[in-house]
C-alpha cells in the first residue's frame, strides 16, 4: 500500500494499438509510482514492446490515454517523450555504429557553443568530459571513448546505451531486454547500474525474459498476454510458477526444471 501514497509517475488508460487488423495491444491500464522499479514480462508477441513504443512516442496509439508526471501527454515523436523526461534503452541498442562514444551518448541533445539551429558548433570538449563522468557512474571501463561503436564489445555497447539514458536527468527510464545479448560479467554490470538507479530513486520499467533477473531486481511484475495486461503482482508475494502460468495462460505452472526460470 506504500505505492499508493507515492506520486504516480506514469499511468495509461485503455491504451490500444492496432496494426491493421492485428490487435497488438488492447485496453492496457498501467500505473507506475515514482521511484518504483517494475518488470514487464510476457511471451513473444504479447505486446510488451508495442506498449513501450506507445509510451516513448516511437508510435502513436490507436486509442487510449497516457498520463506522465501528472499531465495528459500526447507524444508525437521520441523527441517529445525525451523532452518530457522519458529515456529508453532499446532492444536493438539503437546506437550509431560509425560514431564514437560521446557522439552516441549526446545524440540528439548535443552540447553546442552557440545555438545556430542545425549549424551550431559542437562543444566536443564538454561532451567528452561529461561522457567520462557518465561512464564512471556505470562502472564500465572503456579504454578509449574516441573509438567508434563498431569496435566495441556487446557489454560496452550496452553500457553506453544505458549511460545515455541514465546520464541525463530523466524522470523515467525504460529498458527493453537490457541483458539479452550479454555475458555473465556484463549482465552483472548492467544489474549493478539498475540497482544504483533504484538507490537514486529513478523509476524504471524493464522488459525481460529472464525471470531470475526480474525477481532479483524489481518489486512489481506486470504480465502481458496476447496484447492484454493479464496481471500485476508484487515480487515478494509470488513465485515463478504463478508468473509462468500468467504468461502462458495455463492454470498449473510448469515444474521447477523449466529452463527459463
Amino acid at each position, binding site marked *: 500500500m506504500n505505492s499508493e501514497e507515492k506520486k504516480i509517475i506514469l499511468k495509461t488508460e485503455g491504451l490500444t494499438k492496432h496494426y491493421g487488423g492485428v490487435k497488438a495491444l488492447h485496453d492496457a491500464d498501467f500505473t507506475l509510482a515514482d521511484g518504483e522499479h517494475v518488470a514487464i514480462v510476457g511471451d513473444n508477441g504479447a505486446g510488451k514492446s508495442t506498449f513501450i513504443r506507445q509510451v516513448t512516442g516511437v508510435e502513436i496509439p490507436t486509442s487510449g490515454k497516457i498520463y506522465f508526471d501528472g499531465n495528459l501527454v500526447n507524444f508525437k*515523436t521520441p523527441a517529445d517523450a525525451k523532452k518530457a523526461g522519458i529515456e529508453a534503452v532499446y532492444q536493438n541498442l539503437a*546506437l*550509431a555504429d560509425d*560514431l564514437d562514444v560521446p557522439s552516441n551518448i549526446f545524440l*540528439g541533445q548535443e552540447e553546442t557553443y552557440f545555438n545556430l539551429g542545425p549549424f*551550431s*558548433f559542437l562543444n566536443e570538449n564538454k561532451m567528452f568530459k561529461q561522457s567520462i563522468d557518465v561512464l564512471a557512474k556505470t562502472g564500465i571501463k572503456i579504454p578509449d571513448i574516441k573509438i567508434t561503436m*563498431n569496435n566495441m564489445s556487446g557489454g560496452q555497447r550496452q553500457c553506453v546505451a544505458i549511460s545515455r539514458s541514465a546520464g541525463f536527468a530523466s524522470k523515467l527510464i525504460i529498458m527493453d531486454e537490457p541483458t539479452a545479448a550479454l555475458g555473465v560479467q556484463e549482465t552483472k554490470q548492467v544489474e549493478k547500474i539498475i540497482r544504483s538507479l533504484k538507490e537514486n530513486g529513478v523509476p524504471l520499467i524493464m522488459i525481460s525474459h529472464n525471470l531470475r533477473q526480474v525477481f532479483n531486481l524489481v518489486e512489481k511484475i506486470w504480465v502481458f498476454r496476447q496484447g492484454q495486461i493479464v496481471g500485476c503482482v508484487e515480487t515478494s508475494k509470488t513465485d515463478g510458477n504463478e508468473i509462468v502460468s500468467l504468461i502462458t495462460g495455463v492454470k498449473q505452472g510448469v515444474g521447477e526444471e523449466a529452463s527459463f526460470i
Partner: protein
Amino acid sequence: MIQKQKNFISSYRKLPPEFNIFLVLLGIALVFEILGWIFIGQSFLLNKRRLVIMILQVSVIGIIAVGVTQVIIMAGIDLSGGSLVALSAIVAASLAQNSTYTKAIYPHLTDLPFIVPVLAGIACGLFAGFISGSLIARTGIPPFIATLGMLVSARGAAAWYNNGKPVSFLGDDFTALGQGAWPVLIFLVVAAVFHILMRYTRYGKHTYAIGSNEEAARVAGINIVRHKIIVYSIAGALSGLAGVVTAARAMSAQAGMGMMYELDAISAAVIGGTSLFGGRGRIAGTLFGVLILGVITSGFVFMRIDAYYQDMVKGAIIVGAVIVDHYRNKKMRNKDKDT
C-alpha cells in the same frame, strides 16, 4: 625491431584516413610522370598550365561532389546533379543577358547585377533538391528513384525553358565568375565550408548518425524528415552553384550541359572513401577523389590515349573503390561477431 615495426604501424594508423587516398593520387600522378618521360619525353607534373587546366576541369564536378558526399554519408544518393547543372545554368543565364542583345529572353531583365542570376541559379537547384528531399523523406521512396526522376525531369525542364535553344550574350561581370581561378576558388571555399560543417556542427553529426543507423537517430529525437530535406536541398543548391559556374565559364547555357556530371561526382565521393552504406566519409577525401579523376583525365590527354580507354579505366577505378569499401565493411562486421 618488432617494437619499431609496431610503432610504425600505430603511427600509420593515427594518420587521417585521407592519407591512403592521397597516396593513390600520388601514385597515379607518378605513373603518368614516368610514362611521360619514357614515351613523350616531357614531365607530366612540372607543367603549370596543365595542372591549372586539370584543376579547372574538375572544379565544377567537385562542387557537385561535395553535395553528393553529404547525401551518401546519410546513406542516400543523388543522381540529379548533372541535370540540375543544366537547368540552373539556363535559368541563371536567362537573367544574366546584356541589353545589347535584342532577342533576350526577358527583355526587361537585362544588365542585372551579377548576384541576381547567381542567386537564381542556386535557388533553382535548391528548390529541385527540396522536392527530391521532400519526396524521399515524406513518402519513403528510395532516394535512387526520387533523384532519378529529378534527373529526367530537370533535363526536360532545361530544354523546355528556352525551347531547347542555347542562352548566350551574357553580361561580363557574370561570366567573370567562370574565368581565371574563380571556379577553383569557389570549389575550394565550398569544400572547406562543408568540411567544417560535417566535422564540427550538429548538422554534420546528425548526417553521420542517420547514415549510420537511421532508427537510432530517430529514437534519439533527431527530426529525420527535416534533416533529410535540408541535406538534399543543400545538395541541390550546390548543383545549382555548379550550374552557375558552368554557364559563366562557357559564357552561355544550353540544355545538354552537365551530362553525366552526377556520375563523376558520385565516383569522386566513393574514390575518396565515402561509404555507399552510409555513416562514413569525409569532404577532404572527396577533394582527393576529385583530383584523382582530374589526374586521370588530364593524364590520358597528355599520353594522347583515346578517350574511350579513359572511360573504361575510370569505370574500373570506381568499381575497385566500392570493392575496397565492401571488404572494409565486411571486416568490421566480422569483428563485431568475434567480440
